[in-house]
């Protein structure tokens, strides 16, 4: 896939050329150390920037907003490209087959595979968000009508209750669903009982018994920071890449509706003593805090737009419940402001979700491709070290 090589740019080319020179001179590993440090620094810088926009600049991209998440994906792709440049490109396969990499790499590639399922789950989750968006659009469409009558308010209310039910009960949804009710806001429906099946009704499901939280946990297992001499070698970038990938997946699972997130957990170990990990720790704490707040209520995801959508939906429901024709101008104005905000969110979703899905898909393809490249090198290394069986 040509797309995978596009982003790698000249930096990578330089690294590999330089390394080849170093190799051929059989000099010290100074150059390599420099590359590794540069890589760590870049990772740190990228996440610092992601962290700073959420704190310093209120006009910037809010944490876990669509635009922020899209940046996160971009950074992931860049880091991955750089990672490959550092670890793989122009390197003699035999170096990769040496301990500790001979153990670390297979584990690492296994994490790659696990993240593919997460990519798919997130893409489906974004489908569910699109469906929420469509419900919100009905609300906007109904309440934008002037003069506003009871009919419009009832129409909006119907969509609103479907929207809220879908947003609040998602996590209870399970994949059994033999007698699920796929109507949203059906008039004759008592809203409580079947609500758990509603979000399931909003998107496709993953494989039976698949669980996003289990998958995240599986990615975490055996992930420990390299110690001692290893920490200055290639084990370090492998660890960084694993951590970054896991963090991004974790953030996405928290942000968008995903199949089975029970026990997703808010914390996973990050090395406090390392510089590059600091902004990651900052982000993790923020997201974890949000997650804890919402977890008890049961929520569909921390996606900033969805959170705001939920709040707006709540106040619009209040408006709708107390609506009497003819409406009071004051309440009407307040409602109109809410509807405008909701319309704004819908627009953001309309513009952002589709590209985000494509980005997720790009991550998917990139990971598949990189895994294949690693396997080729491991293959070669295997042949070199054990020529005959």
């Amino acid at each position, binding site marked *: *896939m*040509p797309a995978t*090589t596009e982003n790698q740019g000249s930096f990578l080319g330089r690294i590999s050329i330089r390394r080849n020179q170093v190799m051929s001179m059989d000099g010290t590993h100074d150059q390599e150390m420099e590359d590794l440090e540069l890589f760590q620094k870049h990772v740190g810088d990228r996440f610092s920037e992601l962290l700073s926009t959420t704190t310093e600049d209120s006009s910037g991209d809010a944490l876990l907003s669509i635009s922020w998440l899209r940046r996160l994906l971009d950074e992931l792709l860049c880091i991955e490209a750089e990672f490959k440049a550092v670890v*793989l*490109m122009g390197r003699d396969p035999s170096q990769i087959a040496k301990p500790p990499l001979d153990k670390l790499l297979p584990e690492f590639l296994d994490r790659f*595979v*696990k993240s*593919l*399922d997460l990519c*798919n789950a997130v*893409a*489906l989750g974004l*489908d569910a968000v699109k*469906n929420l968006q*469509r*419900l919100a*659009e*009905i609300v906007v*469409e109904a309440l934008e*009508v*002037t*003069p506003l*009558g*009871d*009919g*419009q308010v*009832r*129409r909006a209310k*119907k*969509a609103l209750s479907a929207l809220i039910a879908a947003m609040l009960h998602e996590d209870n949804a399970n994949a059994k669903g033999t007698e699920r009710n*796929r*109507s*949203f806001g*059906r*008039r*004759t429906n008592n809203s409580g009982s079947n609500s758990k099946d509603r979000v399931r*009704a*909003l998107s*496709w*499901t*993953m*494989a*039976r018994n*698949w669980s996003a939280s289990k*998958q995240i946990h*599986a990615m975490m297992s055996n992930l420990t920071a390299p110690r001692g001499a290893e920490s200055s070698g290639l084990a370090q970038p492998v660890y960084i890449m694993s951590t970054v990938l896991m963090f991004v997946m974790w953030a996405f699972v928290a942000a968008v509706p995903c199949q089975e997130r029970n026990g997703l957990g808010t914390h996973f170990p990050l090395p406090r003593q390392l510089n590059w990990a600091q902004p990651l720790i900052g982000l993790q704490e923020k997201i974890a805090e949000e997650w804890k707040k919402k977890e008890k209520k049961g929520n569909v995801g921390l996606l900033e737009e969805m959170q705001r959508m939920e709040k707006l939906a709540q106040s619009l429901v209040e408006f709708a419940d107390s609506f009497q*024709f*003819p409406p009071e101008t004051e309440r009407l104005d307040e409602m109109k402001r809410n509807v405008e905000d909701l319309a704004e969110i819908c627009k953001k979703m309309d513009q952002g979700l589709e590209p985000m899905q*494509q980005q997720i*898909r790009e991550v998917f*393809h990139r990971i*598949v491709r990189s*895994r*294949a*490249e690693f396997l*080729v*090198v491991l293959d070669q290394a295997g*042949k070199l070290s054990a020529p*005959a*069986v």
Partner: protein
Amino acid sequence: MENNVNENSSSVPQKEENINTGDTTQLPVLESEDKSDAKSDAKPDAESDAKPEAESDAKPEAESDTKPDAKPEAESDAKPEGEADGKPDGETEKATDSERDTEKEESKEEEEKEKEKNEEEKEETVEAEPESPIPSLEKVLDEIDQFLVTLQQKVDAKESTPLEIPNFIPVFLHLVEQKIVKYDTGETKWGETIEDDSSLLGCANRVSRLMNHFIEYSRSHAVEEQEEGEEKVVRIDFMVNGISVIQQRVMSFLEDEFRTLMEESRNPNKSDSKGKQQADSLESEPFEESILEFPGFAEEAIANLNKIAKEMVASGYENECSQVYALSRRHALEDGMNKILGYEKLSIDEIQRMQWETLEREIPTWINTWKECTSVWFPGERKLVEMVFGNEADIVVGLMGNISRSIVIQLLNFGESIAMTKRAGEKLFKLLDMYETLRDAIPIMETLFPDDIMGEIKTETTSAKCRLGEAAVLIFCDLENSIKSETGRTPVAGGAVHPLTRYIMNYLRLACEYKDTLEEVFKEHSKIERADSTSRPRYETDDSKSKSENRHREDESPFAAQLMRVMELLDSNLEGKAKLYKEVALSCIFMMNNGRYIVQKIKGSAEIYEVMGETWCRKRSTELRTYHKNYQVETWSKILSCLSPKGLSDHGKVQKPVLKERFKGFNAGFEEIHKTQSMWVVSDEQLQSELRVSISALVIPAYRSFLGRFSQYLDPGRQTEKYVKYQPEDIEAYIDDLFDGNAHARR
């Protein structure tokens, strides 16, 4: 109804006088007055505005007046509106200007009544019903239509639309409400009588047109009305409110009906029992059956869905409608893939951990799912969405994309994950099956999906296809490794065909059943290879000669080049193995055996023969002949030298001791050869007989002539017996024992 018409007609004179009343029925006056107020500095204009309007107002209404059946009905129709209205109505037919004042009062009363009515509607009660008979719906609909037509004519003529709320509108709304209540309570059921249903849809249509009209009016006249004062604004708003409530109720009902129709139709009893069979016996089930089955909507249901969809879209409830449709279809497909096609979703992680034997069984299901999707399901979906949503191109495209995109990607993920599994020779054929499935699906999907959806689908499908192709290429290239890694030092007993030769040749023969696909895959891959050479090792080439040879072939077919390469590797591997034999003759037999096996396999498969070419085969045969020759020389030249007359005679006299030595030498040599070589193996019958024949042809004539010429020199009796152990016939028989793989004990 009738009274409205009358009042409207009576409004004509009022208009001319530009009198301002608060009367509903006289709103056209307000309208024209509004205009003249707004353009107070342009009075002549305002007048000219007003006049044609009044005329055009009057005309169509007059027409409706003259309708013969309108009148008798009208009298009874008028009653529910109240007697106060009814009586003057009759009189207003001849109303004059002088009666205007009283009428004004009546109208005000009427307005109040209407307000009440609106209130009533809000509470959704049907109080009027017991008191008085309901006017016929058909009649009201006619009037509504007339009203709307008139309005449309004005809009078309760019005349300002008058604000009028004829009394038949509340009556109409009341009637629609009654109708919907009947449906809601289940008194009337959808689908029982077509008349009822289409009447409801007809009402929905009128409701939404009225709604659109009033909202449009309210929008375009908002400013003027503010100037005009609260009262009229409120009146319009109340009207809109009333209509919106009815509209929402009708739409909500239609939405539910739409959903029910969608759900009912996709659960036909048939599909379950049939479907299971189909999953069990994938191939035997005829396809026509499923074409009838899927998507399984009766024509009547589709017609109904279409009618409902049309009204919902026209009423602006498009989102609700398409949402219900999308959800229902998605579930239908998700369930269908599982229940009907037996396709089980598996996570990528899971697939990497599964045993190939288990996984292998999923592949035919996956292939069948694709075939079913491209031949039946997707076309079915497309047809259905087009029939339900008709001309709404945007909705059709949107829904089609919504529904098919996810399915396609999910199916592709399975392909991607299979391509990611650990490479193994036995997977090649399944991978190629999958590759072919995707390759064939792309052009079909291109005819099914609109361009904007197809773009992404095509990229994704192509990518998964390439992954599978790439895996196939790598597996095929792994043959090199399996040859290289076959480094056993134990020679095969008797110089028989090496297991490696058997494995490789049978594998190649199977692979060449996929020759065209492999050619394609190799071509694609070598393109990728060239474009992205950073990470992929090029196939190493040993020496410059084979390099240039390879490059030459690569231009024609990278697959053929790879195949050649495998053959070359096999050859050199076999040559190495041949050296393991101590006897040169046996290595010749070994090479002949293997060479023969290879040539036979190649000639036995037209596909592989085509790739390897005639020249190659001829070259191979020549090589075989060389080995044959070498064998003969190696084995038989020494023994044949015993039979040479050379050196036997000295000045024409046969040297007896030498002759004895010759016979002894021959006998011993032949016995030794017989002993060892009957244990050698030539399993190819033809080769075996060729060898025996050629040996016979070499040995027997020589022996016969030697015997004929020199046996006379031996003393008959004991001496002859001692030295002439074998008659030529015996030699022939012993030769027939050779290459049998058994130790013969003839002696």
